[in-house]
């Protein structure tokens, strides 16, 4: 019985306890942004950034408000694209960061990742 409960507990931890699997969006170990550097995706991401109110917490240019600055090198210990994707999709439990899986499909989330990355690149280029 104890072993069964332990196994059940492990399963719940792995699945987040709610049937969701907050790991790779593609099921692979390291998902790659299919829209990396794509100008149309960046433009779409910019529009989505306002439409779903990312700007309300992270500011209009993603340099931080209630939420953290998304354009510098220290944010979340230099996350991979996949980590950013998962945080947008599934949120960060116990923080202000809500899941956006009901507002955005996977393509739209990748567009947002592209936009955030572009802002980071622009900031570096400015030497800011």
């Amino acid at each position, binding site marked *: 019985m104890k072993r069964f409960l332990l196994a059940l507990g492990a399963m719940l931890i792995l699945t987040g306890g709610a049937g969701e699997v907050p790991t790779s969006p593609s099921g692979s170990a390291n998902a790659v942004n299919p829209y990396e550097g794509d100008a149309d995706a960046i433009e779409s991401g910019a529009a989505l950034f306002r*439409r*779903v*109110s990312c*700007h*309300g917490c992270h*500011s*209009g*240019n993603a*340099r*931080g*408000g*209630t939420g*953290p*600055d998304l*354009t510098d090198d*220290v944010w979340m210990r230099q996350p991979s694209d996949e980590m950013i994707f998962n945080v947008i999709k599934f*949120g960060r*439990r*116990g*923080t*202000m*960061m*809500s*899941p*956006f899986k*009901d507002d955005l499909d996977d393509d739209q989330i990748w567009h947002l990742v592209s936009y955030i990355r572009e802002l980071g690149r622009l*900031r570096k280029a400015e030497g*800011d």
Partner: protein
Amino acid sequence: MHVRKQTSTGISRLIAVLCACLMGAGAAQAQVRHTPVTDAMLLNAQKESNNWLMAGRDYSGTRFSPLKQINTGNVKKLVPVWSFSFGVLDAQNTTPLVVDGVMYVTSSHGRIFAVDARNGSMLWQYHHPLPEEVGKFMCCDVGNRGAAVYKDKVFYATPDSHVIALDRATGKVVWDVTIADWTKAYTMTVAPLIVKGKVVVGMSGAEYPTRLWIEALDTETGKQAWRTYTIPGPGEFGHDTWGNTDPDAWKFGGGSAWITGSYDAELDTLYWSVGNPNPDWDGTNRKGDNLYTNSTLALNPDTGKIKFHYQYTPWDVWDYDGNNETILADIDGKKVWLHGDRNGYLYKIDRTNGNFIWGKEISKVNWSTGFTPEGRPIVNPEKVTNYDRKVTNVCPASEGGKWWNPMSYHPQLQMVFVPSREICVDLLAGPSEREEGKYNLGIAEAEWHKGHGQFVAFDAKSGEKKWTVTAPSPFTSGVLTTAGGLAFAGTPEGEFMAFDARGGKTLWSYQTGSGIVGSPIAFSVDGKQYIAVPSGWGGWTGWATWGGKGGAPHLKDNRKGGYLTVFALTD
């Protein structure tokens, strides 16, 4: 729901022995009482020197403690005696309460705790299960500003708009009612106020298209007693102040009420302030005074009916969000309220009729050039933005002046102590995109200028500034004053400081470990005085580092936290 009771419940209502704390050699058994909180106790809260019975300490909202064991002569001997972790990060906006040695303290993310106020031992905790997505519908963090106590219950509001009554002895839920739809950004952070057997609360959500309200519930059952919308409906006085270009402007005009009100029993009047209109900065389609936004309402506590009001910022296009507290004071034989506003002015208003007495600058003010004799601000047209007009160096920025963190009134000195800042902003309004549950700010560009913090003491009789202490960052805590001649305040860096209330000299300081955005209190147990302060940086901090610049850019990556530190004198 998630109650973890760590000790046994008592057999009588008056006394329950809940924990025996062994403190090494000579340890004594600690007894915890759950004294019923009566109407008489609340009405005389100012005289309850041991206790802190409501967010503002008393119905006047003074945040003044008559305790003086800790005073200007010995405050340098103040040391931490216990601390308590909330187990969560983000904005710790709370004011703890203390009733006869038991502390009730809320935290971010919907938690409340009962703690032995002598040593920090937890008696029980309750974690309201929050929907994962609620943060998406809150502009300024998943915070909470405190609880209320009455008889055998403790009450608090949650981000997803529940009002909950818990048994003070056990932490078990007595009732739990939902008063609004959080998925449309109707949320709650307010510390409730108990008035005449009702628990009064107010809504958050004016950064979204909402129509908000103040509401009273029966303390025994949670049943609604009255609800007063802060924006008048058709046929009501003030309904015609929302312009004629958008027939629905009033339906989505915001008007939050998340700062606890005050109550004058003699006048039987409840005073409750109302915040900004929505959209915050875009006034294009709400031309008019936008009643009752940025006003204090005088209400009948039995019915919620509005008796009169005073409006601080008509047609707000600066997001001056005037829902700050009103402190009731009797000065020179006159019954007044004192109100420090984000629009930069400190006000003295006749609380028998809402008439303006004076308004004095807390910080630099240039959106207004003064007041008409009736007390209406004279707007400087050079500082009014629209879609085609960026205005620069608007002072103060949206956070003040005085931000939401409550000030304190010292009745013996007749002085008021205001946590403040000197920060200005450039603004360009932008078209609004109204959609329920989505931000609707009406701003295209905002750039906060680098500024500094200040802690300002005023003579409440004349409005004259008595002293000002400046600091690199704004003072972001609430203020506590005491009969020991002290004024306590805290900073985003986590410094908790004691000042000589008369002269402003810094007498003591302690680094709490995280930014202070909650409010300190004083209480006494077994003849020993304590000072408590919550710390945990969070909330709307865009003013500090917006766009990588901001009013206090050194606060970027400021440390989060979530704890309470309690101090006493060394023996």
